[in-house]
């Protein structure tokens, strides 16, 4: 009851602050932005599923008579030092990049989020033990953990996902826990408890919806940072080595050519950047939709 009231007040507050006309104009712009972002993400996912429909060349095709050519009509993104068509390599490379991004976020986010929820909601000795375990993971910063895992297990796709996912767990767990503790002490939860709601009920109906937004924000960012960590591993010589390089690897391999053939690493770099930005815009939209305040309004 109280929650609804407070949300409504908040909603009125929001309307008080922004004149209606501006609000509507903004809505149009942000909707357009979301549509564009969705199209970009859809296109990149399409690339990952059916690269053959989009890429003009095979990613392994080495045109040794067309080395290091600048972008042109024949080669949209130019060619690399093997004479491969970079556009085609980027299109095919989306597959592993997206896989690393999504898989490690899903694994890391689920495991980390769950730990955070349990730890933050139950508190007490469980919290202490779980958080010490997370601390143990956390004392070894992300990429070092990934380095150690990749170095000990070898750089296969699965191992890189595992390495990146494990290194992401502590972040999710901590943020989720912080969110839990913060929400737990808010008035509407106390109110809910005072009217006799059970723990599970409170958790499911109030705490989770209120705490999921930072986790979602983190997860959208995480897709990007997972791809980036993969490229960091490539940079340090522990990345994925496959016939068709993922974006991070392509970027890492092309970096030595920046002064003579800027296009080799610029396009995979832009692919990462654009993809991450688009995913984030969508993530924001998802957050707004999930926002309990907005929903009740």
């Amino acid at each position, binding site marked *: 009851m109280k929650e609804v009231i407070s949300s409504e*007040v908040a909603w009125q*507050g929001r309307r008080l602050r922004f004149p209606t006309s501006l609000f509507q104009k903004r809505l149009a712009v942000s909707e357009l932005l979301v549509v564009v972002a969705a199209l970009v993400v859809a296109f990149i996912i399409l690339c990952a599923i059916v690269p053959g429909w989009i890429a003009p060349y095979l990613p392994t095709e080495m045109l040794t008579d067309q080395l290091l050519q600048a972008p042109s009509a024949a080669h949209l993104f130019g060619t690399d030092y093997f004479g491969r068509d970079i556009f085609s390599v980027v299109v095919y490379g989306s597959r592993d990049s997206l896989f690393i991004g999504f898989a490690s976020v899903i694994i890391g986010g689920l495991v980390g989020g769950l730990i955070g929820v349990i730890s933050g909601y139950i508190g007490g000795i469980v919290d202490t033990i779980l958080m010490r375990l997370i601390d143990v993971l956390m004392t070894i*910063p992300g990429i070092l953990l990934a*380095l*150690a895992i990749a*170095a000990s297990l070898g750089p296969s796709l699965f191992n890189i996902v595992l390495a990146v996912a494990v290194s992401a767990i502590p972040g999710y767990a901590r943020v989720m826990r912080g969110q839990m503790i913060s929400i737990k002490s808010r008035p509407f939860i106390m109110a809910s408890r005072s009217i006799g709601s059970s723990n599970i009920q409170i958790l499911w109906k109030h705490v989770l919806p209120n705490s999921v937004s930072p986790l979602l924000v983190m997860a959208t960012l995480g897709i990007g940072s997972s791809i980036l960590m993969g490229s960091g591993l490539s*940079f340090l010589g522990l990345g994925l080595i496959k016939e068709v390089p993922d974006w991070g690897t392509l970027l890492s391999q092309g970096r030595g050519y920046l002064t003579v053939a800027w296009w080799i690493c610029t396009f995979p770099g832009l692919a990462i950047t654009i993809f991450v930005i688009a995913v984030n815009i969508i993530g924001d939209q998802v957050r707004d939709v999930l926002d309990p305040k907005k929903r009740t309004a």
Partner: protein
Amino acid sequence: MGRSIITRLFTSLFVVLGSLILVFCILYLLPSDPVLMMIDPSSATPETIANLRHQLGLDRPFYIQFASYFNNIIHGDFGNSMMNSEPVLPKILKHFPATLMLTIASSIIAVIVGVLLGVLSAIHRNRWIDIVARIVGLFGISMPTFWTGILLILLFSIQLHWLPVMGSDGFKTLVLPAITLGIVGAGFIVRMVRNSMLEVIHEQFIVTLRSKGLSERAIMYQHALRNALIPAITMMGVLIGEMLAGAVVIETVFSRQGIGRIIADAIMAKDLPVVQGVVFFSAIIYIIVNLIVDISYTYIDPRVRRAH
């Protein structure tokens, strides 16, 4: 308050122990043999290899190796590097200041730029300031650091000759690496601050404050920002760790001295004493940073303060 800090410190001991065990296990599982990485394949005899292995104590069972290592640590002996038999502790202490400087400098950049852009972004939600701030933030987190670093070198060192390409001596060599690492952190902080500001702005107490007639400035600065900083501060705990890790890449790109390169080399070479030493060291730093983070919570968030 005092008691909880003491409890924290006590449990921290177990965290340090835990992280040592974890790294020991991961590296123990490595299929490579450090002895074979130390010597040349074409010269050493089997006896040399066996001797060396015995000297390094690698022929003993896992738990004995760990117990003896742990015993040494308690006595302040972190062992010697397997690669060049250099004592580990002085090595870490020697390389740590450069990494610390880099971490502090980039954290300052990250916090100033991140909070500033985040707050501006939230207050001017969906206006051009917001869009610019968010795009800057997004570029910060979506560009691989080694790429950013090389681009900055090309621009500021090779084209403009403003700053040195590499090195770890003096302020000038710190600028580019700190910016490279700082904009990553800034990107994260912009997001966190913006999102939590937006949430806080609509909280009941802000509305109450507004209805009480407090000035918008007072509400934003004293209440909204303070509450919005909580998730951002949680992030700082994470970010400091990330920046120490980012140092691994950045120190290589800019050929800086530092602990990042030491540990990367050590992991690759399976130089257990060095890896353990650095992990021990970074565990302690992590614990200190997070203790500070937790204490600062209580000053910023009145609710948590009351809970104590």
